[in-house]
């Protein structure tokens, strides 16, 4: 342990997450008598740095005294989704410039012969040069270096700022890509040159090419942003290096992050999942379904044995795959703003249309007229109309209820409240179904899991969803609304490696497996050594992607350590396969496709017990009670329900539902019979009442 870390122990660490609507900050002052500072400011879309600085200013904390700032950003995500990309050119193998436009022969939806697709790099900026590798990695046609120079100059003349070199089979032999990149470097005025194999060394030209193209076309944007923020922070007195959250759930120096800019595309969701894993592990829960419900969508991830699932196959929108290891977060198209309608068969439908932030739900008073999930919560007494954030012009509950009666009730023979209840119930059912499809349906027993609810709306629905999913308990963290920012504070340094082996297990020898894994460890350790901060300790995780010979799906098999022989590999695979699919196939041989290693530099642990000021807690449950109000429940209808200030609840209090727990940025609903207790970190753990028959 070096001096640097000694400082970190009592350090001041700030996590700042820029979301779609709000920029959240959490600052943990680990010094003696230090406390927690929290800020929430509107996100500044054009230059996110302004919102970040505003959040820092809001704390009144002297920025010069902050030891480490960790940042989650949606700069690259927004750039991709809105196609506000740097002008980027592609140089590729002759005959294949359209790979990025043709994709894999799909359409956006199974039914309906419409839809469109805009390639990341337009056709006139995709140029071809003579060269060809065979699948074996043998050179079939040498690289024509003059053609590379001509193409580079043409793309510069066309105003390109960033360049992708993407050749067929470069994963098998990168020599041509490397040489072309060297040639380009002599002419290109900046270092925005991306070679396809460097980001992702596996077969599949469309996926590898899109990954490289996305990375290259957000790289200049990310770089400008990172530097702008560095300047702004320096202006406030912060002169150290800051860290940026990567989509793999680890963080990386702002100096290094632009090298693989595509990895930041899932920055925000990944930090939320990391915070969930960290918080729940301290609370004693290793298996989680994370449930982050916001205004327009809901993010769901699965955590087993305290490790978030990582995927190399994230598709951030239709035909936009980004195949680098990232936390496997699934987005479900339902959020607080999802609109409820009655279709022409008289059935109630929730979404997919969303009122978004503007006009937003009716209750925001911004001109919204269509009832949303948030409006249903308001009508049913689950949300307090006086405590809504983001209201422009107050709207009465009665008029929101009237909208339910008018738009839903009239066509379904329900009154306004019944209609709102129907919307709530169906929304929960829809979310539960979607969550089950992306998590538990993949071979998991819900009874082994806890539902970790966060985001502005997560705790409102969590108990109902857990009941629907047969998950026995819910964890609501101390600060549900700033979980992503907390993820920045608790995340580790992390580097992931994938190496394709693609051989039958029977043909493997122990030394091959060991040498691949140990090389990956060495590479990861070297990268962590480059960082300005030194971790407490380094953890290494190994896994194998395997399949039965003839199969195309991979399943990820965690390996106990880097010394595995073939029979053990076979056995581990068979156990994992049976657990997942409930099918045994002793007749068929297994294949090892990839060996993976994650090298994780652990940061000193953060003290979460100060997230809610212990001094503010009441001595008794009654002391935390702020009143009662009438709340509607699926079982039993309206009930006069006690309301508690969450931050005032005694740590050892037991709250039995029905009850409402309110705090600044979230409302937690306990349904009748649910039992909530607190823990030392300020989490609320809710045991879900067994469903009563109906």
């Amino acid at each position, binding site marked *: 342990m070096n001096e640097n870390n000694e400082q970190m122990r009592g350090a001041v660490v700030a996590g700042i997450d820029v979301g779609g609507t709000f920029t959240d900050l959490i600052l943990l002052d680990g010094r003696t008598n230090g406390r927690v500072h929290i800020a929430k400011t509107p996100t500044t879309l054009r230059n996110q740095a302004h919102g970040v600085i505003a959040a820092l200013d809001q704390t009144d904390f002297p920025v010069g005294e902050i030891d480490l700032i960790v940042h989650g950003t949606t700069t690259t995500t927004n750039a991709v989704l809105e196609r506000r990309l740097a002008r980027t050119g592609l140089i590729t193998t002759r*005959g*294949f*410039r*359209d790979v990025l*436009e*043709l*994709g*894999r*022969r*799909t*359409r956006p939806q*199974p*039914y*309906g*012969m*419409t*839809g*469109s*697709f805009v390639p990341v790099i337009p*056709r*006139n900026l995709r140029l071809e040069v003579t060269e*060809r590798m*065979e*699948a074996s990695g043998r050179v*079939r046609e040498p690289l024509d270096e003059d053609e590379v120079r001509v193409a580079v100059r043409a793309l510069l003349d066309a105003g390109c700022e960033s360049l992708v070199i993407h050749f067929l*089979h470069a994963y098998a032999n990168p020599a041509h890509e490397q040489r072309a990149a060297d040639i380009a470097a002599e002419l290109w005025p900046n270092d925005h040159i991306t070679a396809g194999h460097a980001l992702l060394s596996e*077969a*599949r*030209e469309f996926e590898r090419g899109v990954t490289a193209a996305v990375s290259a076309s957000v790289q200049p944007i990310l770089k400008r942003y990172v530097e702008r923020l560095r300047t702004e922070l320096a202006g406030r007195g912060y002169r150290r290096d800051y860290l940026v959250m990567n989509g793999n759930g680890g963080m990386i120096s702002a100096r290094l992050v632009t090298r693989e800019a595509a990895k930041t595309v899932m920055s925000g969701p990944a930090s939320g999942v990391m915070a969930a894993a960290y918080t729940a592990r301290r609370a004693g829960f290793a298996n989680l379904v994370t449930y982050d419900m916001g205004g327009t969508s809901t993010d769901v991830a699965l955590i087993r044995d305290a490790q978030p699932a990582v995927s190399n196959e994230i598709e951030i929108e239709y035909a936009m795959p980004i195949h680098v290891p990232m936390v496997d977060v699934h987005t479900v198209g339902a959020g607080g703003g999802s609109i409820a309608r009655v*279709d*022409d*068969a*008289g*059935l*109630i439908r929730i979404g997919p249309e969303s009122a978004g932030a503007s006009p937003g739900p009716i209750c925001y008073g911004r001109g919204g007229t269509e009832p949303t999930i948030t409006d249903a919560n308001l009508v049913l007494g689950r949300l307090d109309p006086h405590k809504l954030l983001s209201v422009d012009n107050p709207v009465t509950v009665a008029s929101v209820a009237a909208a339910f009666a008018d738009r839903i009730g009239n066509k*379904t*023979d*329900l009154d306004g409240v019944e209609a709102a209840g*129907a919307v709530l*119930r*169906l929304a929960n*059912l*829809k979310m539960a*179904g979607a969550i*089950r*499809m992306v998590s538990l*349906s*993949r071979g998991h027993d819900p009874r082994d899991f806890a539902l970790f609810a966060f985001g502005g709306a997560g705790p409102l629905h969590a108990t109902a969803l857990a009941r629907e999913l047969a998950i026995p308990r819910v964890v609501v963290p101390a600060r549900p609304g700033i979980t992503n920012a907390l993820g920045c504070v608790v995340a580790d340094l992390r580097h992931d490696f994938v190496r394709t082996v693609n051989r039958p297990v029977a043909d493997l020898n122990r030394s091959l497996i060991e040498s691949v894994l140990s090389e990956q460890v060495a590479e990861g350790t070297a990268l962590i050594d480059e960082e300005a901060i030194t971790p407490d300790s380094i953890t290494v995780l190994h896994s194998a992607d395997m399949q*039965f*010979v*003839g*199969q*195309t*799906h991979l399943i990820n098999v965690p390996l106990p350590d880097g010394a595995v022989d073939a029979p053990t590999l076979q056995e581990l695979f068979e156990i994992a396969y049976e657990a*997942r*699919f*409930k*099918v045994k*196939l002793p007749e*068929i041989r297994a294949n090892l496709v990839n060996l993976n290693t994650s090298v994780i530099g652990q940061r000193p642990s953060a003290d979460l017990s100060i997230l809610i000021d212990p001094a503010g807690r009441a001595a008794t449950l009654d002391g935390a009670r702020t009143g009662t109000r009438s709340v509607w429940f699926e079982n039993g209808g309206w009930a006069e329900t006690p309301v508690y200030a969450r931050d005032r609840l005694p740590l050892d209090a037991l709250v039995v539902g029905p009850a409402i727990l309110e705090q600044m940025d979230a409302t937690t609903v306990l349904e009748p019979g649910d039992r909530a207790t607190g823990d030392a970190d300020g989490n609320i753990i809710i045991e879900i009442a067994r469903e009563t028959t109906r």
Partner: protein
Amino acid sequence: MTTLDAITLSVIEAGLQQVCDEMDLAFSRSAFSPVIAEANDRSDGIYSAEDGSVIAQGIGGLPVFVGVMQHSTRTLIEMIADGRCLPPDEGDIYIVNDPYLGGTHLMDVRFVMPVFRNGAIFCWLSNTGHWPDIGGSVPGGFSASATAVEQEGLRLPPVKLFKAGAMDPEIYAIICSNIRIADQRIGDIRAQAAALRVGEDRVLRILARYGDDTVVEAIAELRSRAAEQMRKRISAIDDGVYRGKAYVDSDGVVDEPLLIALAVEKKGDTLTFDFAGSSPPCIGPMNSVLATTLSSVYLAMRHIFPDVPLNAGAFEPLVVKRPEGTFLDALYPRPVSGCAAEVSQRIAEAVFSAMVGALPQDVTAAPAGTSGNFALGGHDPARKRDFVMYQLSGGGYGGNAGEDGLTNGCSTIGISKSPPIEVMEQAYPVLYRRYALREGSGGPGRLRGGFGIEYEIELLRGEARASFVMDHGRYGPQGALGGVDGAPNIVTVWQNGKAHVPPHLSKEQDIPLVAGDRVEVGTPGGGGYGDPLTRDPQQVLHDIEMGYYSLDQAREMFAVATTPDGRAVDAVETARIRSATA
């Protein structure tokens, strides 16, 4: 009117849908065959105990299977009733692939399982998976020149592959002795059965939670509401007869086009589809069985109205006259391997072409509409083994009221991805020399068709035989409302440097290739929508800039002239040639 409230109804609807989606997921995730696991060439659903009508079907199922399994399930129920088939016990699963018993082609293998409740059948669960081989004269089953179903593979009537939960080793042995790569099929069989068991578990949970009577009532109500919804959509169309047509290039044996003639009569809230005047049954494998013809109509209507829920009710207002005596109602022993992949898409095209005038906002000009099946089978001397590879390809979609057609879209009846070139070159002794957007192929229109692709594949080693089952070689996908047809499919085989074009254009079997020979394919572009002379010249200019059309094509197809460098529209000249052309 039902006594059920709107909430319970919606809740049960969502629950039944979830059952099917979970079956789809379970099937795909554990299946062996890439056709099922990766290409999702499978479907799962719930069917009524009385007549097999579809109660719910998974959203992720291959579109061509819309409604198909209700025909096979209905046939099974009839066969049990009249003693041609043994009645089920709990835990039994039937296997069936007979095309004439409510099926598609032989490769689509159906499993059917009863869900028992208090000793009686409550409903049936069924799924279909496309097996990579089912025996027959060619690997994979797509013979372009079969003349009887026996040449196409093993045909199974409904028999119990699982009895009381256990697989019958004798039936399994018969199947394995008649198909290629049999050792891997056990993986698909277990996956297919496991998916049904997942479904059974979920159905029983729904019954336990809401009560059998409520669920039964909800199913009936959902059916009638879907029917009502479809009727409303139909009622909005003007009464009248709408005519459409489509051509299959040939049957693969006799070089003559097969005509699909369609008259759709809209009267009140019903559409009646009459295929009278279509070609008689054909010698080659481009026949369709009745179940596939019906499903193709349903599929096309679902593409037009994708938000009407998928249950038997949605099909009630769609009356399809049995096309007796035509190739759309083939009987034993007519060969049928082309029905699911190609004829179904032509039927859908006939529906689109009939309906686009009536529903110009909802229907597109014709899409490429072929699965683009190129199969290459041979021996790889370097690896000392035989191989069969498939290159399935997409094409352009039709222009439509909202936008230009999609480029390289999947077949009308599929949703599967095409394989990566790098993976193909790893697995087979071939080299792709080109894989590109096919310039100029999108049919001109106010909203143009999407573009097809063109690829060129060289055989690197050994000898092989090339087979093609494609379509739209004779006529391109139809333009609509003044739009022009997309470019037709082109196949050229280069043998020893000499070009060979298949006489049937899009279909031929076993063309011999040696190392160095090449296959070149250009797939169809989508049809154009609306008069191309009304396309915004700036959009045409953009298309030129992207290299989608040449300057000459812009002038010929869209009557747009540019400055000599092609960088700006010459407005005066454009106005002149547009008025001259009009």
